[in-house]
């Protein structure tokens, strides 16, 4: 096999892995959208916030210490203890649940029945808010997430495959972190699909998405369902935050991964959990291949827009995305 061909394969494999990471973020969007018709722009910031909280808790940082110091002129920073990773993850989850509950009580409860664009706007407001709170709470400097996740190319795979091509081929490069992420994603998705399809709450969640008023009228508690899905989205955000945070440190830009998830959503369909995965994979492979093959001809850095254009092309043929619910058009 020619080296070029094998490199193409390598790009595809890595694209798939990248796709899994995109899908992790997209999943959070899907959950909330499915349950409430809310397009939650804050999902990216939630990932950042979750990761920040995790690091903060692990390192025993005093929340809001910056503010306290600035206002009272004190000099406090740390509690002086360190929290083991598992416990810290649990604490962070609790924080995310609390966050879900607050969001519901203070914001979305009052917006029941509003048009989607209004809800969308509210989530952008929420994103601003949460970003500010995250910064105030934990500070805006870069933090390293030391969960001990493996990093770097897998030598096993590389050695194993090095013989496939000629001298110009060095074996497949696969990042160990990506492999972990893939495993986690599979588990998460299986769980979520089971939840949505086979539980009473899952059905209620989809009902709520269709018609808030009618859901209320049959006795579904919007509050409960929404706190539930926001908590789930918080869980997904934490996972995404950990995976991305391990890659690039925990800092502001983590919130921008939301932008990578949007084309994934479009392509997979806003309401489909499997869609998020398949969409992620297609986008991952598509953009990497395009950058690999066409990129050099047009000057590179095509990934940001290519994902969107790819999704757009798919949408022209299937306006509801690959797995999205068919848009019902009747008069």
């Amino acid at each position: 096999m020619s080296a070029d061909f094998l490199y193409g394969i390598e790009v595809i494999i890595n694209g798939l892995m990248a796709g899994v990471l995109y899908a992790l973020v997209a999943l959070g969007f899907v959950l909330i959208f499915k349950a409430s018709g809310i397009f939650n722009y804050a999902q990216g910031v939630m990932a950042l916030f979750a990761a920040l909280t995790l690091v903060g808790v692990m390192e025993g940082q005093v929340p809001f210490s910056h503010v306290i110091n600035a206002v009272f002129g004190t000099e406090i920073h740390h509690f002086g203890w360190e929290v083991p990773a598992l416990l810290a993850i649990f604490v962070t989850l609790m924080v995310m649940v609390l966050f879900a509950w607050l969001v519901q009580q203070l914001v979305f409860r009052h917006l029941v029945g509003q048009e989607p664009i209004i809800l969308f706007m509210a989530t952008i407001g929420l994103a601003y808010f949460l970003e500010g709170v995250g910064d105030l709470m934990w500070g805006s400097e870069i933090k390293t997430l030391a969960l001990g996740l493996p990093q770097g190319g897998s030598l096993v795979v590389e050695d194993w495959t090095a013989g496939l091509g000629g001298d110009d081929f060095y074996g497949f490069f696969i990042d160990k972190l990506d492999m972990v992420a893939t495993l986690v994603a599979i588990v998460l998705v299986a769980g979520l699909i089971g939840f949505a399809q086979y539980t009473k709450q899952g059905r209620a969640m989809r009902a709520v998405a269709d018609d808030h008023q009618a859901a209320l009228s049959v006795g579904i508690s919007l509050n409960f369902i929404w706190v539930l899905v926001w908590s789930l989205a918080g869980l997904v955000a934490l996972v995404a935050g950990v995976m991305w945070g391990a890659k690039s440190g925990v800092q502001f830009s983590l919130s921008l991964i939301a932008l990578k998830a949007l084309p994934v959503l479009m392509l997979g369909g806003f309401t489909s959990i499997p869609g998020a995965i398949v969409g992620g994979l297609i986008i991952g492979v598509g953009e990497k291949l395009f950058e690999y093959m066409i990129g050099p001809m047009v000057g590179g850095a095509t990934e940001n827009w290519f994902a969107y254009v790819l999704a757009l092309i798919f949408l022209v043929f299937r306006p509801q995305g690959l797995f999205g619910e068919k848009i019902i058009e009747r008069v």
Partner: protein
Amino acid sequence: DLVFPSLSYRTGPFAAGGIAFADGYADYFTLLNERDGGIGGVMASVPECETAYNAEKGVECYEATKAEGALVYQPLATSITYQLIPKVEVDGIPLHTMGYGRTSAKNGEVFRHTFNYPVNYWDGASAGVNHFLDLNDGSLEGRKITLLHFNGAYGKEPIPTLEALAEKHGFELTTIAIDYPGQEQKSQWLQIRRERPDYILFWGWGVMNQVAVQEAANIGYPMENFMGIWWSGSENDVLPAGAAADGYKALAFHEMGSDFPVFDDIQTYVVDAGKAAGAGDQIGSVLYNRGLYAAFLAAEAAADAQEATGEPEITAAMMRDAMESLEITAQDMEDAGIPGFGPVFSVTCQNHGGDGLASVAQWDATAQEWSLISDFFPSDGEVVNALIKADSEAFAAENDITPSCD
């Protein structure tokens, strides 16, 4: 008061770098105030204004602070620099873009109020190539160098220089762009892995830096052949990759570490007095030192201006004149408590950019510190100056400026 506005960014995507720089900039002036009673007896004030590395906010900050009698601006962003260059010409306030901004502003005949001493990006590109030349006994014939860069004004700045140098030294140049913010660089690094360039020059800022270092480690790229510009060589960039980052290089134009007398003074007069600009945890970091260095250069010029005019309360115009005749000597640095911190250099009307001396720093992951591994050495003036001349003259023609020195 002597007003040195600090257009800082402590939020947003580049906060990590902005915080350290702004802390250093502010702390140095605080030190002068606390220890020496200001500059020439006049207190310095450093009003901070948050730009978030955003051009619009930068302009707003500039407009908001310029009426307070600002002496010099240090916006710490190439994009903001471009907004301010025409404005400072009109307002008569000097602009100092230390190691960034518009390279051709080095030509003071055209850019009367803009200064970019002691080095600029084109010097940086050339210095990087010079370093690689050194490693190869003066010849890069047939070698492959890749420029990995931020896809924007800043990252594209070195390309013309590198193209000229590639022609001159016979190496093959490829450029790979990374889009903002650069958290995902998989395809770029797969491409690098495939092409195996001999050297990588890297123009990055923000999260892009650490991801690049991490990815380089992931694909097992030899770190000592991977060199960043001075904005891609701080602790933030290498710490996340841990031991794998050992040996990564970056250019520098001043010393690293906190082994200078000034830091003791900062500890006593600033930090212990509770007057530190930030949390006090950045002191001695690369970017903190850079902020401090920028403040030092500004303070020197201000002192020169006071001396030259005999007026303690100087104006922006006096400041500009002093910057134009700035001379940084070993003694100046010694006096300021930073002996040998940077190269000695001088500024003239024809040359607003200093002598273009740079050095190479390397990261030691076990000691967790950056240190310079070379002296300050010059860039390829022949190539760089020709490019500067062409670019600045084009600008002059476009804007009806007659280059002159008075």
